[in-house]
């Protein structure tokens, strides 16, 4: 399978959007999203077929062409199971996000262009095997967010857009320093920016010790690494629904993927050396994020803080450095992506009808909007780790993997992280009990309608993803596992 198609389809769609008539923009964007979904499912099947014959944990469908030969920068793409999982996630979230934007009226063309373009950046990032190329796509995925929040956002949108982009740019700057550190060293080994080449050459320990923190923290900012997570609540809550979904469902995953694929994979010894710091920060994020969520009264703030807590599991899994825990981290990325996108979709639907996101003002919506309420409850149950939905699978894999670390420090961190399942249940049920259940608080709510076809389709799509992972986790585990083992094995060797 030609991976460049994954990049070309959204890119061409986004360019075409600029040239068609305004009333066909939505259809074109949706068509592009369907094509991406089909492509990524096709990728999954052909990956299954090919990987059965290939060596476990190797990159497949590689393609390499010179880009800037002078600096040894290549257009080098390829995927392993982890990237395939992330691509699938992206395709699901893109499609759901576009469906949820059906009613955007203001500057429609620009809106759908930016959404599709952002998607292209994400696909490009996940297929890159060249560090420079990867960095390039990372930036492609950041800039549109500034405009999406700044133009179509709500509340203190300018502040939020500035904050988000500045903090993510600071993360990018750290990543860039880290990349140059790696490049500078690897260049003398003729590795250039090539990920596979650098990985097989290895990086001397002292270089690793210097540059691992840059790369890990840089990417970590994208995935809400404590204490650099404060862009998340403001950014999410000011963004329009689809942008929130993209932000939580895709952008935050760029960071987790980068931490894993670049920082940990290339510098395993440094990762092991700093692992206790990662685990410490991740545990703080998990438990502190959960407690901070308890005090939120705005649904979007609630879900954003809960994202900080849930993304903590991603970093916790990576920091534990056992194959199971790293697998769990990837599963958590997929699960959190689907679940948060669903949650933001549900919140967006509620907000569009009731014009409030304050839990205290909502009440008894199950009666008037059974479908939206069910979506909300399913997202909530997934968030609190109900078996049968994806969150359970991911969290349990992280816990079981983390438990393999026998030192007391890691044991305590795991137990503390486990405690978050109780706190999560508290804030999810408080919000559900007030907004969805209970008596209807305002009589005008009685007149509100349930979800429209596009919203239903978006909800069903994401729930299907959540169920496919939650009920039958083995296929995803088998897809991701070899890649995770490959990353951790470098440490042992």
């Amino acid at each position: 399978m030609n991976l460049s198609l994954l990049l070309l389809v959204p890119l061409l769609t986004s360019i075409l959007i600029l040239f068609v008539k305004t009333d066909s923009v939505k259809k074109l964007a949706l068509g592009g999203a369907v094509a991406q979904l089909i492509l990524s499912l096709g990728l999954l099947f052909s990956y299954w077929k090919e990987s059965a014959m290939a060596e476990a944990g190797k990159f497949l469908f590689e393609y390499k062409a010179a880009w800037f030969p002078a600096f040894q920068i290549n257009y080098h793409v390829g995927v392993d199971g982890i990237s395939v999982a992330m691509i699938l996630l992206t395709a699901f979230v893109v499609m759901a996000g576009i469906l949820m934007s059906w009613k955007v009226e203001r500057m429609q063309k620009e809106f759908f262009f930016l959404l599709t373009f952002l998607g292209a950046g994400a696909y490009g990032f996940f297929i890159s095997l060249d560090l420079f190329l990867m960095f390039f796509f990372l930036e492609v995925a950041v800039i549109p967010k500034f405009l999406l929040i700044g133009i179509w956002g709500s509340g203190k949108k300018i502040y939020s857009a500035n904050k988000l982009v500045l903090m993510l740019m600071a993360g990018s700057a750290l990543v860039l320093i880290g990349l140059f550190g790696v490049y500078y060293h690897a260049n003398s080994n003729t590795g250039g920016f090539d990920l596979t080449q650098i990985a097989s050459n290895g990086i001397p320990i002292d270089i690793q010790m210097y540059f691992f923190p840059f790369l890990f923290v840089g990417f970590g900012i994208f995935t809400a690494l404590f204490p650099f997570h404060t862009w998340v609540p403001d950014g999410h809550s000011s963004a329009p629904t689809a942008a929130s979904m993209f932000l939580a469902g895709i952008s935050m995953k760029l960071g987790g993927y980068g931490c894993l694929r670049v920082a940990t994979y290339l510098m395993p010894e440094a990762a092991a050396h700093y692992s206790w710091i990662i685990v410490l920060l991740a545990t703080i994020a998990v438990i502190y994020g959960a407690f901070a969520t308890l005090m939120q009264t705005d649904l979007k703030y609630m879900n954003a803080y809960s994202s900080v807590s849930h993304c903590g599991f991603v970093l916790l899994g990576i920091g534990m450095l056992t194959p199971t825990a790293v697998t769990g981290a990837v599963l958590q990325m997929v699960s959190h992506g689907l679940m948060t996108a669903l949650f933001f979709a549900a919140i967006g639907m509620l907000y569009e009808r009731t014009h409030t996101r304050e839990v205290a003002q909502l009440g008894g919506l199950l009666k008037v909007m059974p479908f939206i309420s069910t979506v909300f409850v399913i997202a909530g149950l997934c968030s609190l780790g109900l078996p049968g939905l994806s969150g359970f699978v991911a969290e349990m894999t992280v816990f079981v993997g983390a438990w393999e670390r026998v030192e007391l420090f890691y044991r305590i961190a795991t137990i503390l992280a486990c405690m978050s399942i109780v706190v999560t249940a508290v804030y999810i049920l408080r919000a559900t009990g007030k907004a969805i259940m209970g008596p209807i608080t305002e009589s005008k709510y009685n007149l509100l309608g349930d979800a429209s076809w596009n919203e239903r389709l978006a909800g069903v799509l994401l729930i299907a993803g959540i169920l496919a992972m939650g009920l039958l986790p083995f296929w995803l585990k088998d897809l991701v596992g070899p890649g995770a083992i490959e990353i951790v094995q470098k440490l042992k060797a």
Partner: protein
Amino acid sequence: MPDTRVILILLFLPLLSFLINGLFGRKLPGSLGGLLATATLFVSFLLSLSAAYSYFFGSVGITGAYETLIPFQVTWLQFSESFSINMGILADPISMMMIVVVTFISLMVHVFSLGYMKGEERFATYYSFLSLFTFSMLGLVLSSNIFQTYIFWELVGVSSFLLIGYYYQKPSAVAASKKAFIVTRFADLGFLIGILILSYYGKSFDFVTLTERLVPAASTYSQAAAAAGFLGISALTWALVLIFVGGAGKSAMFPLHIWLPDAMEGPTPVSALIHAATMVVAGVYLVARLFPIFSLACPGALDVVAWTGIISALFAALIACTQTDIKRVLAYSTMSQIGYMMFALGVSGYGAEEGLGYMAAMFHLFTHAMFKALLFLGAGVIIHYVHSNDLKDMGGLRKALPITGATFLIACLAIAGIPPFSGFFSKEEILLSAYNSNYTIYIIALITAGLTAFYMFRLYFSIFWNKPQVSANEHKHEGTLSMLIPLLILAVFAAFSGFIPFSSFVTSDGIPFETHLHLEFSILPVLLSVSGIAIAWRYYKKPSTVPASVSQKTGSLYRTINKKFYIDEIYLFVTKKLVFQLIARPAAWFDKTIVDGMMNTAAAAAQVFSLSISGLQSGKLQHYAYYFIGGAIGLAILFIYSIA
């Protein structure tokens, strides 16, 4: 050997009914959804009977013991080579007994609800939740892997949450459903950590493998588990006690019981099924499932079980004497009876007659399911009739509700342990095993038995005798046929199921043994029960001022018991005052002020800095000339000094 397909079908039929009712229920006409669910469950029940029959009458091997069979198992999630969550079916005496109990009680509740819930707006939703619960409960009891148990454990928890909150527009129902979920979730945290510890030393999640590895004291696994420890307690004890915390949460053992009385906000048939007969005994079942490990490898953890059980039994019985809500009295009585089962397991040994307590706990679980489901369904009829839960609105109902009155009396006699009703037999075995093992526990258990008889007959007399009949009700009938038939069927079992020779089927090691009635031993408990009934008869058969004056004279003691020992208030203090005010609020504040403040300060500092140096780019030529000349002079000085 039961047919694997039969067990799989009986397990998945309720799931099918859940999907049909959940997805298309609103479109089904009338009560078709409920009838469909009832029909599928009836098939499930028949299949459970056939599976249990072929297990109990066809599987005693050469050793003369009931074997533990795993007729079906698939890998659901493989963590690493040795660790995987397997989904399987484990057939042994307790699982086979439980599928019969679960499907039977669930069937009775399904039939009863056809009448009781008729005309409800969300009728199909109700049945879809009932089916989801039945599926999850069957999955739980059939689990072959402790993680599988945990998965279904959570699923019964969520079904219970959905059903307690069925009347979702009622704030008290919403609060109760949240409370039930969160309290049991808290307990499940213990369960989860316990699983992690246990499996770390047993290197597996499968029950059979865990038992094989951790029971023999000489095995490397159990030696590692015994050697490791934390705070002076061995890792194995930690693991089992933490798992028991999960069980205590689900089974509403002190001090994790606070959700159960509130859970009575759910529809009454739901209370009968989930909060009396099946889900709340899951904790007992869990201890029984791990009993070889508890008993042979870690008696210390079993003591915890015993004491938790007996304290809960007495504690709940005391509270039950003072409550006036019919369903709350029954809820506390459930807690008390589960306490009985728990301490029976706790005092039990392993193997043959030594394992009498184990057998008695399972026996009591069985008989209790029958008479307690009957009591709750009877309460459903009564509440349906008088439209109130409160005892003060009831009285003299024996004429208006003859069938309910008679069946309720049978159930009360059974729970009070009066021969020859079922509770007598199971309770006697429990008392005997306590007598053989721990005298203190035996004495407390006797006191509880007397209290039980008293509060149950206080309930019975207050409802059916006491005042003359409350004003004639617009309801002419006691209830529909679908409500009364389950009462009659359950009454038969509540009366006679004590004659089942339980020890020939369910024993700790699978080897059947004979139990005998010890008449001289039974005299004392029966006498206590009879005197409990007599006191209730004396003061509650007719209106009397004595109970009120007694409660007044005992003053603060009575108030403390009536207020349930203020346990709820303690919890509220800990959660609202301590957790919210001292952890959550500071965390949110810290995040908003300190962490975010740091970011904003950094941004502001950058802004101030850039503003201050932006003056350098003034665009005025003379300024640039100053900088140029100043720079040139500075450089020149630097050069001169460095050369010198």
